[in-house]
């Protein structure tokens, strides 16, 4: 029995109102064709420059966010030999230490998995239409809209 032909990368994309199950995310990219899995979780940090966050609130443009996430997964699959790629983003309230985003990729060797994982989160943060509202411990809240980088892609 010889090595089977390369199959298409298995892609899964989700926008979720409930807590991300990282076990499910890992399971969705695990395969005997892969030697490496890299999982990235973006988690809610309590302190930012001395200010204290109580929770975050995410909203998105659902049709476009899903479409952009699918595009990013396909671009990563074209650039690196990925076995599978799974991207999940939370919507609504996300408490401290909870994951707002999970990105998992698997590949035959580890370098591709690290590079693709890092590229996917960097690019998601630049182009996917999702917005974060900070809820601070002083009772104020504000939409986060980073300035100065061109998000077009």
């Amino acid at each position: 029995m010889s090595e089977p032909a390369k199959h298409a990368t298995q892609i899964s994309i989700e926008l979720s109102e409930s807590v991300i199950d990282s076990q499910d995310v890992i399971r969705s990219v695990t395969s005997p064709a892969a030697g490496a899995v890299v999982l990235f979780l973006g988690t809610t940090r309590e302190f930012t420059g001395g200010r204290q966050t109580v929770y975050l609130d995410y909203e998105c443009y659902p049709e476009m966010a899903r479409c952009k996430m699918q595009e990013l997964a396909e671009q990563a699959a074209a650039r690196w030999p990925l076995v599978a790629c799974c991207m999940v983003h939370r919507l609504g309230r996300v408490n401290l230490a909870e994951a707002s985003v999970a990105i998992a990729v698997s590949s035959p060797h580890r370098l591709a998995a690290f590079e693709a994982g890092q590229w996917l989160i960097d690019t998601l943060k630049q182009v996917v239409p999702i917005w974060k509202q900070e809820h601070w411990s002083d009772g104020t809240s504000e939409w986060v809209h980073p300035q100065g980088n061109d998000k077009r892609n």
Partner: protein
Amino acid sequence: MIVEVKLFAITRQLVGRPTCSVELPASATVADLRRELSRQVAELVPVIKSLQFAVGTQYATDATVISPGDEIACIPPVSGG
């Protein structure tokens, strides 16, 4: 033509509604849309320069032409992740 523009995050908060309507000339481009939004929706003036626009769920350029029935959205700088 009158087009409805989806609003998110700071733009939704400023306008107080999830969409707004704007009247555009026929064969208008995204550059026209930006100019007319500034004139017709005063609440958007403070942030109008920072906005991008999506036409049919794709990022548009100033030259993108808007057709009747296109899905149009205001995209303030994104902050997911």
